[in-house]
């Protein structure tokens, strides 16, 4: 199953792209797929199938998720972004 991925802030600078796609049935699958294709993303933002502290994910601009077991639907959009706001 393919999902769209949008990257913001540090995830974007590490991956070098603003948008991509990934495959997987759950958030952990998608993160693992991204790690394999973007090693610099894995080094700083993703640890295996989980997000590293300081980063979060959002599905479709609606709900924030971090549990790698979070199921995804075909056509979902996953946003990867830094956790903290401020400034």
């Amino acid at each position, binding site marked *: 199953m393919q999902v769209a991925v949008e990257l913001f802030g540090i995830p974007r600078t590490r991956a070098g792209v603003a948008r991509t796609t990934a495959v997987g049935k759950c958030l952990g699958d998608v993160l693992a797929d991204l790690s394999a294709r973007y090693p610099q993303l894995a080094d700083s933002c993703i640890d295996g199938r989980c997000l590293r502290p300081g980063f979060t994910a959002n599905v479709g601009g609606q709900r924030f998720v971090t549990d790698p077991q979070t199921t995804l639907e075909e056509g979902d959009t996953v946003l990867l972004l830094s956790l903290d706001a401020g*400034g």
Partner: protein
Amino acid sequence: MGPERFPTSKTLLEGPGSPKMTFHSIPAYHGCYLRVDLTTATSEFVPLDEAVLRSYLGGSGLGVALLLREGAATVDPLSPAAAIAFVFSPLVGSPLTTSAKFAVVSKSPLTERINDSLASSAFAIAGKKTGHDAIVLVGRALCPSVLVIDDDRVRLDPAAELWGLTNRQVQQQLKQRYGADFQFATIGPAGERMVRYATISHDGRHAGRGGSGAVLGAKNVKAVAVRGSRRCKWAQPDELAALAKDLSDRSFGPATAKYRELGTASNLLAFNRLNVLPTRNFQQGSFTGAVAISPEELNVARERSRASCVACTIGCEHVYGLRNGQGEVRLEYENLFALGPLCGIGNPDVVLQASQKCDELGIDTISAGGTIAFAMECAERGFLDMPWLRFGEGPALLRALDSIVAGGPLGELLAQGSRRMALEVGHDTIRFAPQVKGLEIPGYDPRGLQTMALGFAVGTRGADHNRSGAYEVDFSEAVDRRNVGAEAAALAIETEDKAALMDSLILCKFLRGVFRDFFAESAEILQLVTGWEVGGEELRRTAARIVTAKKHFNILAGWTPAEDTLPERILRHPLPDDPRAQLSPERLNSLVTAYNLARGWTADGWLNDESVVSDL
């Protein structure tokens, strides 16, 4: 010890202050504050009990305690009787990263409520080295002056020739006049004119919100100059050094990467995607021109350098160059949002120029942008006869900013902030004035971030993202950010208490992500600097006491429960670009009630027991 007059000079009062007695000081503190009466040109050293220091720590906490002691809540903040406190903290001067910070605390001329604004860097270190834990000013100088505090020596220097200079100009002149080992807190022309959201500036950074610059301007003080030689001792210096090194090492990690690499402005595109980027005076939650002004784009096109405060290992400041050799400017998310999307501006040159103008004039970017965006909407709706003032018009934004200091019909309105301006314009425009308690709302649309909405509504200094970090809850799985329930109250309180503690210790909030257990680790830090046997639970109570003291100040100043709300626009109209983002008045009221009860106050927000702050 009673006050003692300064010897007078032929121009103004100057000379050594009253002899300083030896106060019993505990590690990390001097055990006294300096109180200067500018009207009588007298000063005194006032002892600080250890119990008060332990109860309120420093920074914002100690500041509100001193303001309560001064009876400042019932005084016009622009009158000579008003007090303003520059407050240091137990961590200033320590090897801890981000600890070089100071608080400026007064009654706000914008909100008529408590205002504690923080700024960073060498002024904090030099100010504490004068041998005082705080400097409290009351009265009004006879003429424009520089207050010089050189260890125990205190004098007022006449400074009419500095009046009218921008912050950068006056800092340059002061360095030439007094030497590089003095540090300066200054006001720009906005402070002189008592613009109600004027800032106090040090080295390009600002104690920004709430108008502390106007309070200083009303006292005829263009600058406070500090130099000192007194260092505090630390209770356990070796252990403190080891902990400081560990904290510094952790501060280089992923939790602060976004600040270091992109700066706070990196929020812009994420907020835009989530439809919580306030646009065109909160009429929308996303902005079509966001990419052009994003840090990702600016970094490619024009970034010049990064900078950091003294004693900081994060380095969040990103300095961008203006076109045509017009200098450079620090850019943060809040000035980017307020002078960009909020006014419909997508031209990066205009946003950078507007930010630079605010820095130089000494005005808070959020309140300036919010008030001008409100004026733009008033003009577009025909409530202001100013056809040139339109959303998206860069020259109009720059002209409006200039008018805030230059005066004229529009400038006089803008200088009052959006709440007072709405009441003068009439036509029920208060319903879309973007403010809470008179303080303009920062760059988080409350409809899409409803825990933050609660934080804004109950905030003691008005809508503020630095006194409540409740957006962190909205950016988590803990709540549905567009439909939060009563569970949000305790979560909002947790972020508010953390902020109160960070602002009193003082540590930079950008460090918060590196703590594993913030209250316990803060207690360990405080124990190493002071020697107090203090634990995380005591600091939780301390944080709650500080928040309660601010509320107590506001009640004395005339607070009523009706103030703890949001503008009608936010409560009656969902976001057009995200119709699910809707917050009714009834639901906000229920959240506020839950918050008040969780605080241990009455359902309406009155204090049940004022004894918690009665020992002042």
